[in-house]
């Protein structure tokens, strides 16, 4: 299997690390939904903080896989850090943009999201899952080379 094919077996998800911020929590909840429920075989989570700390395994993971970033604010820390780590961003999501398209899901809360926040995270997760489907190998062999 060539390197280019190997990259299509997994997508790395890097969410915002905005602890104590509602939109940061939405980004992380969406990431958990993707890697734990929606596409567990074809996605894996890398914590932004590990990239910031220069963790070698985290940097290697983003450098050798396509990455989906989820940013909680316009600073776009997740996207910038992935790019600085040598990663290729397949798609960058901004929680604010998703909310603008789904105003009925108003997120509030920090440690625990309100119902709107949970629903917004789910909508975002489903959009990310679509990207994962687009860029990964759907064959049974896909996702076996984590």
């Amino acid at each position, binding site marked *: 299997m060539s390197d280019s094919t190997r990259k299509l077996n997994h997508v790395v998800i890097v969410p915002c690390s905005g602890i104590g911020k*509602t939109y940061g929590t939405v980004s992380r909840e969406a990431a958990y939904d993707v890697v734990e429920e929606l596409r567990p075989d074809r996605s894996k989570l890398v914590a932004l903080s590990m990239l910031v700390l220069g963790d070698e395994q985290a940097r290697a993971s983003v450098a050798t896989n396509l990455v989906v970033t989820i940013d*909680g*604010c*316009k600073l776009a820390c997740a996207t910038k850090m992935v790019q600085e780590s040598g990663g290729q961003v397949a798609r960058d999501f901004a*929680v604010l943009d998703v909310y*603008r398209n789904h*105003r009925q899901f108003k997120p509030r809360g920090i440690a625990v999201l309100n119902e709107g926040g949970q629903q917004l995270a789910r909508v975002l997760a489903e959009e990310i899952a679509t990207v994962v489907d687009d860029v990964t190998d759907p064959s049974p062999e896909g996702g076996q080379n984590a």
Partner: protein
Amino acid sequence: MTEFLETTVDKFIFKVAVDRYYNSEGVWAKPEEEMIRIGLSDFVQQRNGDVAFAEVKPEGTAIALGDEVAVIETIKVDIAFSSPLTGTIIEVNPAMEEAPEAINQDPYDQGWIALVKPVAWEVERSQLLDAQAYFERMKVEAEEETKKL
């Protein structure tokens, strides 16, 4: 070209445009011939975060000094702002509907909120802060905010 007063508080840089007046909430009012253009200060937009939605009273609405003129929803808060003057809203910035992030990107120019035909501007102007007075007030508020971080 607009000139600014500028200060750095912690890692944040705040600008105050000198060619307009401000109410205590940080709503600016800029005389333009017979009209007054209004918007939010740089400090207000930075303190409240990225704007998700902006709802402005519609064109034709008569507003009094201190009336609610706009509500913005940001990633942090929902906040209502008071009109800095009495008059009639002649025009609402289309960006408030289509791209309210203009408030964050360019609060003193492209991010304006509304154009108002004033009723008693000469009288009400004296109740507003000039740029220097708002600048001093804003610095105090900014320093208090950073203490909370």
